């Protein structure tokens, strides 16, 4: 459990990083919080010949809410998101700080970065699910300058994205707020990656918990842990349904019916389907009750 040999570089700016990556070629990798990359290197599942450490680049750790939504710098630590109490962020994006506590353990949250999580593209990662749920954009810097990619065009499969080897993620942009939203998940131990995670939002048209007889305009459900990508459930059938327990239960069954999850050490496909149904129902119940 010692990494194969590699060389190490530290950069101080985004252009320097991009230039360095271009110079080093395909064998180089960005090192951010190291919470995914370093374990993989120790298992020799990843064997980069060079690491470009970006953690000393100034100015990439922020959460900024404004009229065009929320912008999160790539080097923002999970823990910084978790502790964010900025009322402008909380109003509309309170889901992110609430969801952060599901990520690993405290030391991992203190080191791991938002951009690293998106770049790593684990289909059960909380930030990846929320990026899909909230239809975020990924801002990348490359030799040809910056470009913005909607997440729907970014994640390709297990741990793979459409980013080029010489590109660096600099920012995540969440254009739309979601008041009635929640993420919930199940793992046997606190801090483990979710066996199944459900990220949901409900558009009730108004703030506050649903009034009796209120209907949902639309429902979004994204599942993690059920395939190679965050899975977007087709929830068309739920539009206009009452914002009530029966609908949330139906949404769970709808989700369970649409997925084709893998079998692994946690259980077979049937177990994951049950789990998805349970978690979607619970997440929607929580989302609808959000202030």
């Amino acid at each position, binding site marked *: 459990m*010692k990494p194969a040999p590699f060389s190490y570089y530290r950069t101080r700016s985004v252009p320097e990083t991009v230039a360095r990556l271009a110079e080093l070629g395909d064998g180089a990798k960005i090192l951010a919080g190291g919470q995914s990359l370093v374990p993989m290197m120790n298992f020799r599942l990843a064997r980069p010949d060079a690491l470009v450490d970006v953690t000393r680049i100034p100015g990439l750790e922020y959460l900024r809410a404004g009229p065009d939504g929320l912008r999160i710098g790539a080097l923002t630590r999970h823990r910084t998101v978790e502790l964010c109490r900025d009322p402008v962020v909380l109003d509309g994006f309170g889901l992110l700080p609430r969801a952060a506590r599901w990520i690993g353990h405290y030391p991992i949250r203190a080191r791991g970065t938002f951009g690293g999580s998106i770049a790593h593209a684990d289909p059960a990662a909380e930030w990846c699910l929320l990026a899909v749920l909230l239809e975020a954009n990924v801002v990348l810097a490359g030799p040809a300058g910056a470009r913005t990619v909607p997440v729907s065009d970014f994640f390709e499969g297990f741990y793979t994205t459409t980013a080029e080897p010489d590109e660096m993620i600099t920012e995540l942009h969440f254009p739309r707020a979601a008041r009635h939203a929640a993420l919930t998940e199940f793992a*046997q131990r606190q801090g483990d990656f979710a066996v199944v995670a459900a990220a949901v939002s409900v558009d009730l048209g108004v703030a506050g918990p649903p009034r009796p007889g209120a209907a949902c305009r639309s429902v979004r459900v994204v599942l993690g842990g059920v395939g190679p990508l965050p899975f977007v459930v087709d929830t068309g059938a739920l539009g206009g349904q009452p914002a009530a327990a029966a609908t949330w239960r139906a949404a769970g069954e709808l989700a369970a019916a649409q997925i084709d999850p893998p079998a692994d050490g*946690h259980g077979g496909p049937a177990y994951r389907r049950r789990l998805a149904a349970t978690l979607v*129902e619970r997440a929607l119940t929580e989302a609808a009750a959000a202030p």
Partner: protein
Amino acid sequence: MTTGTSIPRGAIGASMARKEDPRLLRGRGRFGGDFARPGQLWARLVRSPVAHGRLRSIGTDDAARADGVVTVVTAASLPPGLAIPVRLQVQDADLRDYLQPVLAADTVRYVGEPVAVVVAGDPYAAEDAAELVDLDIDEAPAVLDAAAAAGPDAPRLFPGGNVAADFTLGYGDVAGAFARADRIVEIAVEIGRHGAVPLEPRALLADPDPATGRLSIFGMTKVPVFNRDLLATLLGMDETLIHVHAVDAGGGFGARGEFYPEDFLVPWLARTLRRPVMWVEDRGEHLVAVNHSRQQVHQIAAAFDTSGRILGLRDDVVHDNGAYCRTHGIIVPELTVAMLPGPYRVPAYRGRVRVVLTSKTPCGTYRAPGRFEGSTAREQLLDVAAHQLKISRNEIRSRNLLRADELPCQRSMSTLGTDVVLDAGDYPALLAAAQAEADRLGYPDEVERGRRAGRLRGLGVAAFLEKSGLGPQETADVVVSRTGAVHVFSGGTSLGQGIETVLAQIAADALGADPDQVSVVNGDTDRQPFGGGSWASRSTVVAGSAVHAAAGAVRDRAAEIAARMLEADPGDLVSEHGRISVRGDPGAAVTLAEVARATAPASPYLRPGEPAGLSARRRFEVAHMTYPYGVHLAVVDVDPGTGGVQVLRYLVAYEVGRAVNPALVAGQLRGGAAQGIGGALLEEFCYDENGQPQSATFMDYRMPTAAEVPPIDVLITQDSPAPGNPLGVRGAGEGGVSAAGAVLASAVRDALGLAGSVGRLPLTPARVQELATNGGGR
């Protein structure tokens, strides 16, 4: 051996802070991996990547040429036919054909089996070069299901087949009991493969001294004297030329410190290369290399009369031992069937066990070996029987527990080479005390409250019998130096359990000294060449009794010398707090330091022919084990939507005979319960259909963390001092884990309102979810 000096009762029974803590809490402990020697080399094992196959060739040229590499060794370079012998021979089993070679020569039988070693100047270079060793293996089918592997048509791991042993223990007319039973209850219970997994992996440093031919070893912690002697035999050396040093260890739990292939390889390499050689196991290796444990299938049945009394008990166990028989031989399966009747009145019993070899990591003991497994099967059986007999789970237990007046109870069986004689105790009283404590702590209320709130909440109960204090002997030396410091050289080893503190307390009381004056060295083969090691909950009992005797002898000798110094009668002396004074005249006193100096070679107080020094060596012998017992109770919530099980409350009630240090007993029980929660709910070594390990990281091998373990309540009773040793102590190492599988199975079964058994541990969410769906609700 007692003189007129009084024996103050002070240290024993006090919850003293651990003597180990100052160094361990300040980071001054020294673990195997902390040692380093100038010019030291690093070893890296090359392990089989396949579960079963014929080793056609091993290409070592590229690795040998790699940067920094000193040598690459395969079986061909070693003395031929090297296999690791069984340390504990029982039931006359002949296991010679199933022993693990140091390095596989022609067949590999599990993923992780050592096939070569690379030695290099640093651990990185060694690991890089190990990847270059080219293994050509002709793969054969993996043998994974033990029950199938026992059958005639299974692929064979060994020419003699896959069943290493098949034996039956028992007594009485079992067939007759079942024939006249009013009710027969039978269930199948499977225990998942898991293991000790101490948080510090293994580490070993061997340092040869070219001048003297001596070999210093750091990192053998458990049975250092046995390992030294075995190593000496294998290397053809005089055993006193090998010095195993005492080091700290981050947990043992049965797995650490047995003689593994690395325990031969590292010293052999050091001798051959004439350089210090270090090997530090990493976590990935540890999870496939170190002994696994527990994997068994029980087909268990009991015959009852109309009032729910057991007439007979039988069990048919298939024990999956992995690829080889290692140092533990067949003691885990033996203990399983020998201890299976537990604390109950079982007039007729038969336990059969087949020890089956499979293409997995070989197995050994893990804290409460055989009892965790057997108690789970037996207690589930009693729960199911209570349901069928329409009596409560407590009732069926209190009707069948042996009463105090039925002890001692000899069962016509042997285990670990000793007869099974349940020594003393009051099992029903402890069950009642545990219930009362749980009531007082509000367990039943909590269950009611949860159920009223619509939760699937269950209460589990399990009674168990432990064993401890395995002899047959243990030796201790006690030496008082010129400063009055008392040095204990014991045959135990420090594995994190606090044995230094416990032995210091025992020595202090027996000697009339303060525990602060006492320092304890465990596991140094030069200082204590006759030690039996720390395992089987034996050290407080047997090492403690040896220390008690040796310290008592020193007290007597000190009194003799002091009498000469004070011109008093030894019978008039009082030994307390390191001072020996004349009774009724506290001014007439000498300190232990003064007495020790008065035994210096030129001292006028020494008589002709008397040896110099204030010291004694004593040996404690014991033919039988002592059998502690206990009860576990637990409250759990089952989430039917996820299958998750949350342990809300947990109580261990345990009869320890006499608690030398109650805080340490509680610590042992709590730590054991935490491990038991892991084994019952979380931990399992899984394999895919090709025999590839699926639990090879701490992400997949799920040990409980602080978040999964509730505060553990303990009730320590000292109502039944062990009759077989002078201190009355019973071991405390394993009672916390023994019934954890049983009690959590019982609690989950209760939460789900199952009529039958939970069937299998660990109770993973997927399994519990299935039980919740198909097993029917409350």
